[in-house]
């Protein structure tokens, strides 16, 4: 049985940016540099110190919710069960924390769902029927969003393989902004389930699960987006693509 090759540590101390990358466990750093750190007390201490600060920042980062009140307190606030300084504490936090505000908005949606929302859905459905009917009478403007493409359901902005599946993203003008349709099919053209997230400048803009292998988003503003696709049962992205709503798509 052959022994695994042992990487000879580099004699040179890694530069600061390399130390940061080694601390971040960047797999693309040269193995000799990584090996040096494990043999050098100074570099090893620097990496440990970096990771300690990084972990501390993680603990206190707003998105990990370690500074947020328990959700039972958010619920109690909404139900009118909190009083005095506890109520003030939670209200003050709610005003400052978009994550907690998001949770409370989710609670509102659960509590107020019911007949009124059905009426709204019916109204939207009726409106959609009317728009579709009018669409036959009023020609839609020719889309000039993707160069060299023709308008059909929309212009094909992205077409690429995702594992053994095929992803297509089409763009078309909507009443306001741009409509995006993403669809994922298998080798036989059958629709596949997926979840799609759209972000711009690092901010999540939309996230949707496919209905019959298709996601339809309306009223997108022009700009550069990052589209991330997830397959069922996997938390790792299956595909990440950059998309310029007024230009050509480029792969990430």
């Amino acid at each position, binding site marked *: 049985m052959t022994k695994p090759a042992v990487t000879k540590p580099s004699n040179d101390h890694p530069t600061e940016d390399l130390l940061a990358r080694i601390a971040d466990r960047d797999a693309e750093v040269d193995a000799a540099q990584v090996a040096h750190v494990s043999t050098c007390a100074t570099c090893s201490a620097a990496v440990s110190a970096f990771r300690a600060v990084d972990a501390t920042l993680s603990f206190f980062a*707003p998105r990990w919710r370690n*500074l947020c009140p328990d959700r039972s307190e958010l619920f109690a606030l909404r139900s009118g069960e909190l009083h005095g300084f506890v109520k003030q504490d939670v209200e003050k936090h709610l005003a400052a*924390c978009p994550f907690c505000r998001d949770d409370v908005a989710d609670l509102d*949606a*659960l509590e107020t769902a019911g007949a009124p*929302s059905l009426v709204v859905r019916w109204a939207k459905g009726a409106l959609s029927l009317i728009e579709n009917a009018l669409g036959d009478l009023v020609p839609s403007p020719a889309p000039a969003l993707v160069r060299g493409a023709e308008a059909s359901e929309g212009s094909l902005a992205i077409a690429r393989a995702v594992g053994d599946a095929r992803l297509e993203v089409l763009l078309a003008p909507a009443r306001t902004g741009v409509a995006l349709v993403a669809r994922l099919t298998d080798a036989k053209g059958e629709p596949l389930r997926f979840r799609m997230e759209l972000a711009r400048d*690092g*901010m999540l803009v939309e996230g949707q699960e496919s209905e019959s292998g298709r996601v339809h988003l309306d009223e997108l503003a022009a700009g550069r987006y990052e589209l991330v696709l997830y397959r069922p049962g996997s938390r790792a992205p299956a595909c990440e693509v950059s998309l310029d709503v007024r230009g050509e798509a480029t792969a990430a």
Partner: protein
Amino acid sequence: MSDPDEELAALVKKVRARDPAAEAALHGRYRRFVERRLAEARERRNWFWLDDQEDAVQETFVSFFAAVRDGRFAFEGESRLKGFLVRTAWFVAMNAKDKAPKTRTVSLTVGADDDANVIDVPSFVASASDRLARRECTERLYAAIQSLVDSRRDVVLRTLAGEKVREIVKATGKTAAAISGLKFNAFKELKVKLEENGFVRDCGADTFSVAAEDAS
């Protein structure tokens, strides 16, 4: 209590006594109610992270029956029962949201304009609960961050906001080497400041040493 309520009260009492038939009866009666509420909220709020709605419905009832058996739910009418089911469904949905990939980021800034995706740092720090004994620690940490020079502070705040190096590169236009180097020096300086202002001694003794152990 009205007759229907009395019938429900009897069912709840049987659930507390671990009667499976009573559980099945309550489940059959309110399953559609929970299903509809979750489906409508999911659509309205775009809960893309709720992969399996049926699973969420089942989990809601499992939690509800456990609450009845433990005495955490007392029947006081159908309206309160439905309210408790909604509350339970919310907790189930929020647990699913916590497990979803953390793709959402927020910007951290000082003196933010009103923007749903921006956290105004001073307001956020001041709102960290005293009852969690973390406000003073948070204040010291953020004060140390605020005292860094602009470029280092920016990298640290972006890291706090959840941005990876490649995202910071895209946002700032600097090279990856420049960002990694900035981050290294920023963290080095921050560690010194946190030692000087007593954060490591008073607050970081647990988090810092645990972090160091995890780091090794």
